[in-house]
């Protein structure tokens, strides 16, 4: 009974719309509901199985009732409701933490807790309707509770089970498991928001806890170091104390990151208004010099600096994270890296990246009001900003050396570096640091320890170094920069491949490594493309692309290298094509065409012995299809400004001298790819998806080329479409259905009657007809099928009538016969005779909805 009752209550809590005659009715309904809810919750011991149901009721009523109705509740009732919600949230939070310790399969309290935190976010985000400050105390309680559940005893309750015994299970954690920052991002967003609402309490709390933990880690590391020096058995050391501290710091940093900043994808994040207001409010009590001193001395305890209680709290929280980072750096310099936590290292990098995007060199024009401490410490043209950039850069460089073996941490580290250089204002400061130039030189010379980094990390590092090159420098400095960073790459490569005996030495390990490193670097350079650097990067990359084609021949028997070469083309196409004007695009198309010709020649017939032969074939086919799809994407996304970007550099090449178009390259490529796509290969999902994406793109973008294809190729294409419609995933089915309309329209345009395409579309009519009438599909699929059906019916009206006739005449049951006959009549009533007119098509689709509702499933084969 309980489950059903709760479900019923949840539905009652989501009542809205015209059922309420006026606002006052809504208010009194809600009041009644809330009273009942409160007395229910206060009167019972909530069972585990009821938690989710109760949280649903609360979530629904908060989401579905307008703010104005909630605030119109009698204030005592509203207060009681908020208090109840607060207590419930904290209670569910504690139970959820217990569930984690016990590692339950079904975490009902976690689910309920998530729901309630989501509701809090909804409530506090819309603060204008609610009385000012009414959420501060609740926020404090929920925030405190979250922190307590996540830090260890005695301050917190993490890992304590019911009887107070703490567990310390060491489980194997696979790389595929999401980091907490993603796994709990919803919870953290809510807690972050609540932390902002109650900033007066929460920000200083985070700071004091973090500063305390950092001091303790420092002490513990020192003690452990002495123990290790005294004892000959490192295994005798108990890591529990350190691990507990690392876990505390992990959560404190995560929460701090979510309180201080957001991370919207693709936009410049702003300092949250609550944080800015908090800083401004207290700025009169703040001593700027002390604040800057605390910021600039991460190696010293904050509390040891005189006047430390007169610092800006936001800055002091950042400083606490910098202190964590400093302890980490010093420990690794003292050869204690084995005792450190890579997870904590990741958290630090993550936080600093998130923080830097928002606070470092903030643009004051974007804010109505600005906090003086914040703008003095990190604003444009400040010493503070310069110092921080220098400090972050040193940290990145140190990490790249110390943590080269930890791939995720290295990755987070280079991503911080990219953040530092991807915006010009920051890059301008970075390039003034000597350590940046040292990094560039070190990387260019491929010397240790940077060569130990994994390939993806090296690529991103290359990207960062290229981005940095576009910072503001005087022309001498700029020339020198490219001379350090890019020219060695080019020089070494050319010296190598231009050697007379290159083909003979090509298999030597050192040579192969040089080639691979160069190809990886090219991918990284392509990734650095931005709209204002595409011109110079394109020229640089194009020179390489021609040489790369030559490499295809030399390494034709080494699949890994061939794949990497193709990948360079894929990356260049991916990142640059949408910015290239006509002339440059053509150069790229030509290069790609040549690449494909060489690939085709080298793959006339191959049989490999390795067990991974199939996967090798799959790898290069996947890359080629990605390349072709990237070239086609220009049809959808074109930022080029008809060669304006290149006008100064490119004279005398008449645009009318078109030799190669995207269609040419793509169809040539498809010609190669199609015969190689066996049924077996289609079993690889990524390959299958890419293949169908490509061929349906072609049907949509170049339908006029389809009839011009060679017979074998045409047949394969049609067969693939049929296969896709009938035997593949619904995403692929849909893509194929969407490709049919352009094909049918192509036929209609040319008034063809007996061409292979005309015949093929007639066959498709039957397939789509059967799909709609004999099978059940979801709405999206039905719409896609309906659109296809309409265009095909327009083209093959007689055939359609025949299909309907045949279907009807095969019905034995008179009732079904009549229902079907009526349904079909209604279907085409509004579009007789059917033409390719948009209005008619829309009417048809509406009728189709009715048709499917009426007789859909009637004829389904059981």
């Amino acid at each position, binding site marked *: 009974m309980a489950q059903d009752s709760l479900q019923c209550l949840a539905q009652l809590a989501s009542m809205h719309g015209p059922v309420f005659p006026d606002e006052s009715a809504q208010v009194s309904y809600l009041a009644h509901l809330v009273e009942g809810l409160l007395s229910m919750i206060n009167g019972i011991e909530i069972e585990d199985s009821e938690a989710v149901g109760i949280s649903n009721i609360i979530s629904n009523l908060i989401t579905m009732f307008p703010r104005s109705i909630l605030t119109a509740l009698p204030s005592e009732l509203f207060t009681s409701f908020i208090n109840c919600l607060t207590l419930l949230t904290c209670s569910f939070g504690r139970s959820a933490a217990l569930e984690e310790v016990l590692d339950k399969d079904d975490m009902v309290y976690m689910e309920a807790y998530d729901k309630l935190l989501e509701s809090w976010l909804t409530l506090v985000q819309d603060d204008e309707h609610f009385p000012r400050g009414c959420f501060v105390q609740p926020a404090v309680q929920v925030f405190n509770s979250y922190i307590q559940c996540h830090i260890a005893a005695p301050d917190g309750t993490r890992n304590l089970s019911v009887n107070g015994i703490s567990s310390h299970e060491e489980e*194997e954690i696979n790389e595929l498991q999401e980091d907490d920052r993603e796994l709990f991002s919803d919870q953290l967003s809510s807690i972050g928001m609540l932390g902002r609402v109650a900033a007066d309490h929460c920000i200083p709390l985070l700071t004091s806890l973090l500063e305390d933990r950092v001091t303790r880690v420092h002490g513990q590391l020192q003690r452990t170091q002495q123990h290790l020096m005294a004892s000959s058995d490192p295994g005798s050391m108990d890591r529990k104390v350190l691990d507990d501290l690392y876990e505390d710091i992990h959560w404190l940093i995560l929460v701090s990151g979510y309180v201080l900043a957001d991370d919207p994808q693709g936009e410049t994040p702003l300092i949250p208004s609550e944080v800015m207001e908090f800083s401004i409010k207290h700025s009169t009590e703040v001593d700027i010099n002390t604040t800057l001193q605390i910021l600039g001395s991460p190696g010293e305890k904050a509390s040891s600096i005189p006047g430390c209680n007169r610092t800006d709290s936001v800055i002091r929280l950042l400083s606490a994270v910098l202190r964590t980072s400093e302890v980490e750096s010093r420990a690794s310099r003292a050869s204690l890296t084995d005792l450190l936590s890579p997870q904590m290292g990741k958290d630090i990098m993550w936080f600093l990246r998130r923080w830097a995007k928002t606070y470092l060199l903030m643009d004051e024009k974007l804010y109505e009001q600005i906090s003086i401490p914040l703008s003095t410490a990190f604003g444009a043209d400040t010493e503070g900003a310069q110092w921080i950039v220098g400090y972050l850069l040193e940290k990145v460089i140190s990490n790249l050396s110390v943590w080269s073996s930890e791939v995720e941490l290295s990755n987070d580290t280079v991503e911080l570096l990219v953040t530092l250089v991807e915006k010009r204002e920051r890059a301008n400061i970075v390039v003034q640091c000597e350590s940046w130039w040292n990094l560039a030189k070190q990387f260019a010379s491929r010397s240790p320890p940077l060569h130990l980094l994994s390939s993806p990390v090296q690529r991103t590092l290359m990207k960062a170094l290229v981005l940095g090159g576009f910072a503001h420098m005087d022309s001498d400095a700029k020339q020198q920069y490219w001379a350090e960073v890019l020219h060695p790459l080019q020089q070494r490569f050319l010296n190598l491949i231009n050697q007379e005996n290159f083909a003979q030495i090509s298999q030597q390990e050192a040579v192969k490594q040089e080639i691979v490193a160069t190809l990886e670097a090219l991918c990284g350079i392509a990734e650095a493309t931005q709209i204002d650097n595409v011109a110079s990067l394109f020229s640089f990359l194009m020179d390489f692309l021609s040489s790369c084609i030559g490499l295809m021949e030399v390494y034709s028997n080494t699949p890994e290298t061939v794949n990497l070469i193709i990948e360079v083309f894929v990356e260049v196409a991916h990142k640059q094509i949408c910015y290239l004007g006509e002339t440059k695009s053509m150069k790229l198309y030509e290069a790609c065409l040549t690449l494909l010709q060489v690939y085709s020649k080298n793959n006339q017939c191959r049989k490999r012995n390795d067990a991974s032969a199939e996967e090798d074939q799959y790898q290069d086919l996947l890359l080629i299809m990605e390349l072709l799809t990237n070239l086609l994407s220009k049809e959808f996304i074109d930022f080029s400004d008809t060669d304006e970007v290149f006008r100064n550099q490119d004279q005398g090449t008449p645009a009318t001298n078109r030799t190669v178009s995207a269609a040419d390259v793509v169809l040539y490529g498809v010609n190669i790819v199609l015969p190689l796509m066996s049924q077996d290969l289609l079993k690889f999902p990524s390959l299958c998806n890419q293949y169908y994406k490509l061929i349906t793109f072609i049907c949509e973008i170049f339908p006029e080329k389809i009839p011009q294809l060679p017979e074998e190729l045409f047949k394969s294409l049609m067969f693939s479409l049929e296969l896709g419609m009938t035997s593949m995933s619904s995403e692929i089915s849909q893509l194929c259905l969407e490709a049919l309309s352009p094909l049918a329209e192509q036929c209609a345009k040319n008034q063809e009657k007996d061409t292979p395409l005309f015949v093929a579309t007639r066959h498709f009519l039957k397939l789509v007809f059967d799909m709609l009438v004999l099978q059940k599909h979801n709405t999206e699929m039905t719409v896609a099928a309906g659109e296809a059906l309409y265009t095909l019916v327009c083209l093959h009206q007689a055939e359609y009538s025949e299909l309907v006739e045949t279907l009807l005449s095969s019905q034995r049951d008179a009732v079904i016969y009549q229902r079907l006959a009526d349904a079909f009549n209604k279907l085409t009533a509004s579009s007789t005779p059917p033409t390719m007119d948009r209005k008619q098509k829309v009417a048809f689709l509406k009728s189709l909805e009715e048709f499917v509702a009426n007789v859909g499933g009637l004829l389904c084969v059981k």
Partner: protein
Amino acid sequence: MGDDSFDIADSGASLTYPMQCSALRKNGHVMLKGRPCKIVDMSTSKTGKHGHAKVHLVGVDIFTQKKYEDICPSTHNMEVPHIKRKDYQVSDISDGYLSLMDDAAATREDLKLPENDLGKEIDSQFEKVDNIMVTVLEAIGEEQVVAVKYTK
């Protein structure tokens, strides 16, 4: 390029070189249990949330196709075999041995026709086509034909 010690001259040549575990890549090569393997799977794990990474490697012997696995801390060095490939034209097959010629017209007759599907294919196609090429893979002092190429 002359910075490393990979001397590929005949005598005293090292057959493997060390590489940090975390820098290995899938589809690259590594020595597992003494055998040269192509890496078909590489994943990392750690013991506890604050542990250091360990790399799990799954490889396939490039000569025998046998599967091998290993786990190592990501800071450790693994040995990577020097791999060399060379293409030869097949001029004759007799007694299970291949007569091969390289592009400098040097010949060799010391390599066996492999006893697998690839070998069968080479054998059956040899009579039928004009020009049949094979790729010979060399690693840790062993050599074997691993691929065939011909135009029909």
